[in-house]
């Protein structure tokens, strides 16, 4: 069972990284889209306070644009960490969505602590139970953070599932896939909680597992419950970026590139190149007024006036 768990873990890491990379590349390969920004645009420095932007200025193209990274942080941090938007517009859902998402952030921190602990151990600092100093502190913190994350996530997954099932409006938009996803989370974190309570109270075995993954020095472990837990966790890890839950990183592009993508084209060579590329593509829309044939490109189609094909001016 230990070998299976290690194999699943490595495969899952590859799938996870590959899926994240593939999704980002698929987005990056999309053609340049037209500007479609939506205010408030958080980086618009002081103007973001009232939802304004640089277009409020006369001769805006002659002026230096102020772009505030701090302004973006001020919006993104509460949005990501606290789900501020859901709190403001969908409070009843927030009570279950927040523990779920926050639980996942806590678990990401927990994974970080385990990796850090494994690195310390590899560096010769004992991470065995009873260790003192930094190692002891790490063990103590990990022992608190892990269960907190599992509990929050379990409460959230259960709450989200129940809400989807009991609220007819949400149920209308839910597929079997939704329930499956939430059930997978619930089962995984429940098994993890049970494993922690019964066989791995200080996450010593889990840290050892992470150590083995990092150093390729594989430690055999006895508990099949522990192995089941690790298999579930890594299957889940691989599964997330394959679903709509990839929004956890794709949100960056939706917000930065589309919603806040207000960069004007003031003779930007790269933008101009991409516009040229886009306009050179053939159009095959079939409606009569388009006058496309699958060969004419966008420049030709857009320059054609179906009401004045000869280019004449009205009398």
């Amino acid at each position: 069972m230990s070998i299976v768990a290690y194999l699943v873990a490595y495969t899952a890491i590859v799938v996870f990284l590959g899926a994240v990379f593939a999704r980002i590349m698929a987005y990056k390969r999309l053609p340049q889209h037209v500007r479609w920004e939506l205010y408030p645009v958080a980086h618009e420095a002081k103007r973001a306070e009232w939802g304004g932007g640089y277009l409020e200025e006369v001769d805006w193209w002659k002026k230096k644009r102020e772009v505030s990274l701090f302004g973006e942080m001020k919006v993104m941090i509460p949005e990501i960490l606290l789900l501020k938007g859901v709190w403001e517009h969908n409070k009843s859902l927030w009570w279950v969505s927040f523990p779920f998402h926050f639980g996942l952030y806590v678990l990401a921190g927990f994974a970080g602590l385990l990796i850090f602990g494994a690195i310390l151990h590899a560096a010769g600092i004992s991470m065995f139970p009873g260790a003192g100093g930094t190692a002891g502190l790490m063990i103590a913190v990990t022992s608190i953070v892990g269960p907190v994350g599992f509990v929050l996530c379990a409460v959230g997954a259960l709450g989200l599932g129940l809400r989807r099932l009991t609220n007819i409006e949400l149920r209308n938009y839910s597929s079997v896939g939704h329930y499956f996803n939430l059930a997978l989370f619930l089962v995984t974190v429940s098994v993890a909680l049970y494993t922690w309570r019964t066989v791995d109270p200080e996450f010593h075995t889990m840290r050892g597992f992470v150590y083995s993954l990092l150093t390729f020095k594989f430690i055999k472990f006895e508990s099949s419950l522990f192995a089941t837990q690790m298999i579930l966790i890594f299957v889940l890890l691989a599964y997330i970026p394959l679903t709509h839950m990839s929004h956890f990183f794709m949100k960056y592009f939706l917000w930065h590139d589309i919603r806040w993508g207000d960069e004007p084209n003031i003779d930007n060579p790269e933008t101009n190149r991409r516009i040229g590329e886009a306009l050179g593509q053939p159009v095959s829309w079939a409606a009569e007024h388009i006058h496309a044939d699958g060969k004419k490109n966008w420049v030709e189609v857009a320059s054609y006036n179906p009401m004045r094909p000869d280019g004449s001016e009205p009398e």
Partner: protein
Amino acid sequence: MSNKFVRITDISKDTPQLAHVDNADLMPLPIDVEEPAWGEISEATREDFACILDDTAILPIPKPKTPAEQKAFVEKFLSGMEKLFTAENNWTFLAQLVTTMDHCAKCNTCSQACHIYEASGENEMYRPTYRTEVFRRIYKKHIKGEMWSDWRNGKIDLTWQAVARLGELAYRCNLCRRCAQTCPIGADNGLVAREIRKIFSQEMGITTPELHKNGSMLQLKSGSSTNMNSLVVKDNMEFIDEDISEITGYEYETPWDVEGAEILLIHNAGEILAWPDNVGAFGIILEAAKKAGIIRSWTLSSDLAAYDSINYGVFYDDVQYARTALLHANAAKKLNVDKIVLGECGHAHKALTVIADRVLPQELLTPRESCFPLLREIVMSGKIDFDPSRNDFPVTIHDPCNVTRLMGIIKPQRDIVKKLCPQFREMVPHGVHNYCCGGGSGFAIMTRNNIPDWRHKVAGRKKLTQILDAFGDCRGPETPKYVCAPCSNCKGQIRDIFDRYEMKEKESLIYSGLVELIVNAMTEVKEGFIKWEDEF
């Protein structure tokens, strides 16, 4: 009886109508009014067109009658949908569309933001996610071909009824994108409505006559959706110049086709016919600014389409959009002006200032700006005298979505009214979080069938409520009140809601633009530019 709740799968069913909006379910208004029943849709219309969504009919979809026609109808839709997801046919919006398809969490957080959903009494078919969800299920199953799609994404039967209703549903959205503003992921249900409209127009050739035949096509033919060619428009403007000069005692003449001018001003030509005071007020302000040395020169262009800023393609068709934007840009290039300034028309602002930015080649990108910052500069310059006591009546501002939420132009118009209107008050919410007037995306110009019923009592309901609430301290006919709506389409919609609910009679409410308020306060101009008596 209303049937407010409909399932996603109901859209595919062979039923006469998906859902009905009952007057009893409508969001209450802050006035005592008995809503009349829905107007009838004629038998002939019902016979020829698929009127199977709700109580009205906006998109004239020829009803496919035989099984073969029905099959062809669905296949045509699918072929359009397939093109919509290709880079060559939809490079303009592919990124926004694909991310919305793939990342929505189905949390319904966006629902409460939608004035149409709220005003209808939360009728499920108007929920921002309803049409998107149907569209998404079709896309995942039939275009993307996802394995186990029913299981992963939910079931959908691709019947002709589903396609026809989806097309109609795309015309139950103002494209105001207030829903998108609240989405924690960044998905955009307003965009999806527009993309569906594109399939119907660009692939199936099914459009609303107001936006297409009598809109963008007429503009390409005669230069304006008003059907005014350049001679007629010049004639009309000359008449307005004379009339307004006489009324105001301020002599000015609109300059045409001035090469090398600093500003090419483009109005929504509808103003020239429906609200000539607006174009007249612009003339006075720009002439005064020129005399005061704030601007160097300005001009209008008589080139094809260059005297009408409308670009209805923004609402339904990328190709029609590009054709019109190209005409506007070419006119500016020909005159070699320093910049284009858009008059009081929201969608024209967005079309030419923002969207054109990544559509037109660099050599055609004459700088474009909104009229509002320029008007603020003129009003705040201290070089023109104003008497705010001339505007001493309650005033509120309606924010056109295209100018505020979609362009971030919030403060200039407020700085002006705060300076010139002592009794200015805001609506709640306002600015970037405003509500659409209900006329957005083309509805303001639609009067066929019983469309006005829908756009007044559903789409416009929230705006009317907001306006009345803003004047909560001076309700009733005794106090004349002014709604500043600096956008042609918004004005058209507000005019019609006021008529329907007798707001002039019952509340002494009038609406008009921003430039009218500016000229009304100019001391160089005879008092009384805003003619209340004409309104009552």
